């Protein structure tokens, strides 16, 4: 059940950004990832989500158990809130979206086109997607961008409830969510500058 990361080295555009990252994420716990802009938080989360291969190191217990949410929410402007959510529920083999709509107070917006929502409302819909996936490990990249205080509170509640059900969460954020969670500061793992890895054309890919 635990997500284990051992001695992970990751690169962005062929340049190593972090080396020697190790941590454990047990069921029912959360881990906050911190670090200045460009320190490799997003790359770390994308690597753990399986979107890019690590340079070296092991990631254990991530296979088919991660729900990933990043800066863009994967919403279609010409589909309604319900249709967007229902699509992701079906992709993950689920059919229930009611609880997710309720958790982020999306019921009043259920029949609106996603294209007509405000930035914060879109974000809420993007986060509601996490609930319908029914995956145990949430990997979230700056989940609270453009959320107001009320929505941040809803989000914190949703994370608490998820942890309470035995889930886990890995969250890169700069604000205090009020979670009782340890902090992983990635600037401690910064790779030596100037080092290059991979094929010479990696930067162009």
């Amino acid at each position, binding site marked *: 059940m635990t997500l284990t990361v051992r001695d992970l080295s990751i690169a962005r555009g062929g340049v190593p950004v972090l080396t020697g990252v190790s941590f454990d994420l047990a069921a029912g716990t959360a881990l906050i990832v911190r670090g200045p802009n460009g320190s490799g938080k997003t790359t770390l989360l994308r690597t753990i989500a*399986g*979107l890019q291969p690590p340079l070296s190191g092991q990631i254990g217990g991530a296979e*088919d158990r*991660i729900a990933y949410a990043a800066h*863009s*929410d*994967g919403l*279609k402007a010409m589909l309604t809130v319900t*249709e967007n959510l229902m*699509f992701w529920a079906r992709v993950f083999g689920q059919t229930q979206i009611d609880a997710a709509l309720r958790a982020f107070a999306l019921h009043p917006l259920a029949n609106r086109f996603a294209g007509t929502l405000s930035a914060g409302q879109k974000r809420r819909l993007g986060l509601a997607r996490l609930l319908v996936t029914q995956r145990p490990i949430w990997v979230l990249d700056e989940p609270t961008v453009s959320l107001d205080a009320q929505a941040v509170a809803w989000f914190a509640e949703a994370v608490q409830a998820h942890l309470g059900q035995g889930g886990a969460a890995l969250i890169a954020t700069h604000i205090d969510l009020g979670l009782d969670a340890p902090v992983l500061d990635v600037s401690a793992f910064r790779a030596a500058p100037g080092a290059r890895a991979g094929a010479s054309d990696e930067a162009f890919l």
Partner: protein
Amino acid sequence: MRALLIRDLSLAFRAGGGFGLGLAFFLIVTVLVPFSVGPQSALLASIAPGVLWLGALLACLLSLDRLLALDFEDGTLDLLATAPLPLEAAMTVKALAHWITTGLPLVLAAPVLGVLLNLPEQGYFWLVVSLALGTPALSVIGAFGAALTVGIKRGGLLMSLIVLPLYVPTLIFGAEAARRGAQDMDPSTPLLMLAGITAGVVALMPFASAAVLRVNLR
């Protein structure tokens, strides 16, 4: 898989979805050809199968850059890559949705436009058969081209350059089958070649598409 197909189809039919773009282009090309060639019905009849096939191919090409670019921009591809659905299946479904919204309308419209080009009577059946067999290959190969160029801004030109040579065998055998049909010859050899090409690319291309897409999502 069904959810993705239904979503892609409903997106295509809603405002701004791009359904009908290929069909309109096909219509314009085939309507304009008789004007540019002139009123020579014998000449028109002999070039009709080739013109219809070329028009269908270019119409297919026109809508390809929307196949993945929109999903890439709004982050859907990232999320799909982390979903339980294998990317190979997702690419197959997206190519199928492209064929239903672009290829199938072309197949159905071709006989109507054949009238404008004075296509000989016996050619209609074989024209429709060859297009029905060949256009799935155009969509699947096109999905590969779209996957290859998905992260590139204004990748349409590059994609056309990559995809067009891959379209050549389909065009040769498809147009040849339609031509033989129109001239009352036996079209079975080019039709079998065409069906073979389609079966081959439908079976293999989704794997190539998913592989290049994974590289592009890094």
